[in-house]
């Protein structure tokens, strides 16, 4: 048994969970302040998760619903394992060198597929509608996200994240080196976070919160845990690819926080898009910037 690896994995997951939870709390607090409210304390999400785990009963509609949240947490922690938390291996290495960007793009869908299947088994029509919207929207934001990442992979001839970080140590942040790809990536990232205006998947009063509507107690708790880990993993991935990674925890927190606040603050002041509107939004300006980024990359290598 490789105990140091297990230790590293455990500590990384706990860190991601803590940071993700606090970020969630902060986003609730910020939302409240913008709406001129006091808002819940920033550790509110911890209490919510703890409460959900301390629920004493649970129901499921079959095996697939039982397994759905497991898929989600497996996928989110797996994503985390392949993303370097800090530069130069200062944090635990985990499985950083065992996967690359294309692998991660598929890995990130693994959990969504599992959640979708779990939600499908519940037989609640609202869940199915939510899943249909979520998957449709995913096709929408994947296009600019893909354009951004492919532009970078092509331009710098690297698909591994560690490779991209090393490269940024030499040429500076890719945010400035490939600005168009960064814009496309950022706009797609806003969609990936599922905050308003792209939150029609989880519309609470219209769809009764959509896919998780039949999940309660420990299942919902596991989903929230997975969600906060996944948030952190996505943020670190974005920072690693575009913002040159981070050399210490403080820098990482600062960068991820700034990136995290963009969808949050954009979301608070935006009304909700319908599904086809959001798909068309992603295939509009973000894709345009992605194509520009791609042409730029092409120009740079030829």
């Amino acid at each position, binding site marked *: 048994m490789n105990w140091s690896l297990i230790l590293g994995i455990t500590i990384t997951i706990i860190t991601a969970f803590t940071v993700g939870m606090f970020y969630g709390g902060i986003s609730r607090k910020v939302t409240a302040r913008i709406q001129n409210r*006091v808002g819940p304390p920033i550790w509110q999400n911890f*209490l*919510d998760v703890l409460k959900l785990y301390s629920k*004493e009963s649970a*129901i499921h509609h079959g095996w697939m619903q039982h397994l759905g949240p497991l898929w989600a947490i497996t996928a989110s922690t797996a994503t985390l394992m392949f993303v370097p938390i800090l530069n130069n291996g200062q944090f635990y290495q985990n499985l950083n060198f065992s996967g690359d960007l294309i692998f991660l793009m598929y890995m990130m869908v693994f959990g969504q597929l599992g959640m979708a299947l779990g939600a499908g088994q519940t037989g609640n029509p609202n869940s199915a509608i939510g899943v249909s919207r979520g998957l449709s929207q995913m096709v929408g934001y994947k296009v600019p996200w893909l354009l951004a990442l492919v532009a970078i992979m092509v331009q710098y001839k690297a698909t591994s994240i560690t490779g991209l970080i090393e490269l940024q140590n030499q040429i500076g942040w890719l945010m400035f080196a490939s600005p168009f790809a960064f814009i496309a990536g950022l706009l797609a990232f806003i969609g990936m976070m599922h905050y308003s205006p792209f939150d029609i998947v989880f519309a609470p009063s219209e769809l009764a919160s959509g896919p998780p509507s039949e999940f*309660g107690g420990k299942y919902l708790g596991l989903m929230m845990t997975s969600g906060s880990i996944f948030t952190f993993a996505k943020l670190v991935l974005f920072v690693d690819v575009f913002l040159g990674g981070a050399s210490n925890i403080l820098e990482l927190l600062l960068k991820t926080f700034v990136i995290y606040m963009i969808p949050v603050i954009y979301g608070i002041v935006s009304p909700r898009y319908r599904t086809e509107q959001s798909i068309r939004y992603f295939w509009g300006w973000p894709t345009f910037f992605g194509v520009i980024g791609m042409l730029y990359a092409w120009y740079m290598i030829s």
Partner: protein
Amino acid sequence: MIEKKDSLAIGEYIKNFARKHSLFVLAYGTGCGAIEIPPTMTSRYDAERFGIRGAATPRQADVLLITGYLATKTLKRVIRVYEQMQDPKYVIGFGSCTINGGMYWDSYNTINSLDKYIPVDVFINGCMPRPEAVISGFVKLQEYIQEGKADGWRKYQNNIEEYRENQKRIIKNWRMPDYNL
């Protein structure tokens, strides 16, 4: 503080602490009291300070908020919703109508006392209670949860026959599936 409550182990204390500060509310808003919920949740009174948050479905909810009168027809739905919630679960009776029928005390189709049909942990009186009263009711519920007194759900499980008998007096054609108890 912990020593005072001998009956509660530390684990139970922590659990109750979390339960107390995180109340997902499912508002059953068929009565007139539903109009008091938006001011309670939004910026004027901001119930989210206390960890009170709306829940979309009974599966996710902790607190069932019965806002006002219950017709015999809606009682059936309320019972179903209550039984779909996961333990531990709490009920807040909101407004005079849930206590003694309020202004509908002699109506042929509104029930008079809610706690005969489902266990109620906290009643908030008033017609309608103002948001301050609602929040004070929630704070009272939080106290009960911390002390372990908010055990209506356990009472419901233990006295299910009695509750069923009362429910069946209202819902004569009982064809409800056997739900989560």
